[in-house]
């Protein structure tokens, strides 16, 4: 069963957990970008979600409430971005970067009194029957609820984008906002909601780090996860299920390189530590070499109704 001294069952089980924060953030950002907006503030929204989720979970002793408030906090922060970009027509790249600065600053100030405290955390579900299946039970069915919630969100996003009217409208807005506007769709309102959804998902992802991965609050604890999530979206060519693959692949390579080290496989460590990024680039090249990347045509372009 072991390969190079690594048990693949355990590897997959731990990569699912390890990839969940970036998956949540990435699926949210996919929706935002599908609507034609590029929000580079994912890191800022994640860390605000992490701190708010942590604070409420500690005070209510209920991690579920923590996740809910984290989503709300992420969505609220994203409205700053949405207002600036949609109503005040500011540059999306710069506004997203500004949002990250603001998020990092706010989170550090809010979190000060909560340093060094442990939060209540989510228990593993150990889904009845399924968790007892040999191999797969341990690998796939013994995680905490948020792992499945994240997959569920991916499924919902996929279904909504592909099969519902709302999804069609969202995609139309992202592909050609002028045409969508001409057809009578509320471009600004749709994008505003998409941005808030992205904020909520980022908030959830951040809370997963502060409530499950680490169960503690420390300043700057998302440590760049938001940037990886942004990369995953492009990597996935804006397709929901590919986001899942991308996040798991990225998480998987990170976990694998640490596992290879732990197993004492003699590969120079410094090359291993850069491998997730190099492999991401390589896969990206392969995908793009095959042709259309599927970027929403209006991505990053400002919309002005009277044009």
């Amino acid at each position, binding site marked *: 069963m072991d390969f190079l001294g690594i048990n693949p069952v355990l590897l997959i089980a731990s990569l699912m957990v390890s990839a969940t924060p970036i998956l949540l953030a990435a699926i949210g950002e996919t929706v935002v970008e599908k609507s034609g907006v590029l929000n580079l503030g994912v890191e800022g929204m994640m860390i605000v979600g992490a701190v708010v989720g942590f604070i409420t979970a500690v005070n209510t002793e209920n991690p579920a409430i923590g996740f809910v408030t984290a989503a709300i906090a992420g969505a609220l922060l994203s409205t700053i971005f949405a207002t600036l970009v949609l109503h005040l027509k500011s540059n999306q790249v710069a506004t997203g970067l500004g949002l990250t600065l603001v998020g990092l600053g706010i989170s550090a100030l809010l979190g000060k009194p909560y340093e060094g405290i442990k939060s209540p955390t989510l228990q593993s579900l150990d889904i009845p029957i399924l968790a007892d299946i040999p191999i797969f039970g341990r690998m796939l069915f013994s995680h905490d609820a948020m792992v499945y919630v994240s997959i569920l969100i991916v499924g919902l996003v996929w279904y909504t984008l592909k099969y519902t009217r709302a999804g069609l409208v969202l995609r139309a807005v992202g592909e050609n906002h002028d045409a969508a506007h001409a057809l009578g769709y509320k471009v600004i309102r749709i994008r505003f909601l998409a941005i808030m959804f992205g904020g909520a998902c980022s908030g959830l992802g951040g809370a997963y780090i502060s409530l499950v991965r680490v169960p503690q609050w420390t300043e*700057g604890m998302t440590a760049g996860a938001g940037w990886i999530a942004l990369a995953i979206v492009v990597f996935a060519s804006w397709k929901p299920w590919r986001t899942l693959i991308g996040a798991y692949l990225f998480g998987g390579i990170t976990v694998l390189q640490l596992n290879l080290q*732990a197993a004492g496989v003699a590969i120079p460590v410094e090359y291993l530590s850069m491998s997730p990024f190099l492999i991401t680039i390589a896969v990206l090249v392969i995908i793009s070499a095959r042709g259309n990347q599927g970027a929403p045509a209006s991505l990053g372009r400002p919309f002005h109704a009277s044009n």
Partner: protein
Amino acid sequence: MKLKSILTSAIAAVALGTAAIAADIKVGFVYVGPVGDGGWTYEHDQGRKAVVEAFGDRVETIYQENVPEGADSERVMTQMALQGADLIFTTSFGYMDPTINVAKKFPNVKFEHATGYKRADNVSTYSARFYEGRAVQGHIAGKMTKTNKIGYIGSFPIPEVIRGINSAYIHAKKVNPDVEFNIVWAYTWFDPAKEADAANALIEQGCDVVLQHTDSTAPQAAAEKAGNVITFGQASDMAEFGPLPRVSSIIDDWGPYYVARTQAVLDGTWTSMDTWDGIGPGMVKIGEISSAVPADIKAEAEALRDALGSGEYHAFTGPLNKQDGTPWLAAGETADDGTLAGMNFYVEGLTGTIPQ
């Protein structure tokens, strides 16, 4: 209404500001991380608070957090000196050359640089012998492991970290000849998610003890989740993870040193010196050994701690060979500080190579 309260507070602050000038001396601290990192910088800030506690109004402390190494740190130190600081603690290895540069420009200001090796008439250096604490950890780890596999999360392969690995290994091996070390280099000081992954990787390899030389509590949480794995707090106590998985910890206690040096400046007796203190003078503390450790092992560990503290035992005592089998220390010989300071080799028995 708001404007009025702002104005009132501004006036109040100006009044306060003039009142605060009464302090005899001003002491500055330059931190590499945020004071709330729960590890390295947190403990230095605890040291600063100890100074405040000890001297009250006689000493004013100022600090700056998240100061990048290099040019930014040089500017921060200069601004501190310009602002009238009499004594400045620079608490990261990377501040070494900037500290020397600024010290040249301000001969009347005293500087204290942590973990470096360059001194001047107004620059002292200080560091802690963390490896003494690692020896105690190694002892407990060697005794407690059932799988005989001990995991070690390293940050960067620098002498400080390698010294810790060697010390822990020597003392684990001493009490348990079958013990093996699995070492993972995270290439970061602080990245909770990555540290959690590293801990999980080690646990999946069958390690039931995880030692860390990174700053976050993520490995503790990973061990708690896995169950049957023990860990040790790093830099700060991390007591919230006790009694299991955290069974003990190494705490950097800078307070007594900072108080003593501040006192020396107040008394006018400050001179440049090199301090490398361990358990004995209290710069390194072993956190409470938890109830999860059987009484006899706890007693042995405390005896080892005390022997290291009193100086009757040195953590690197021969016979010891280097990893490739070449002799390093003869029986009874102890390592000199120079070799320890720049340690860049594993001792015999450790597997793997140190990344370059």
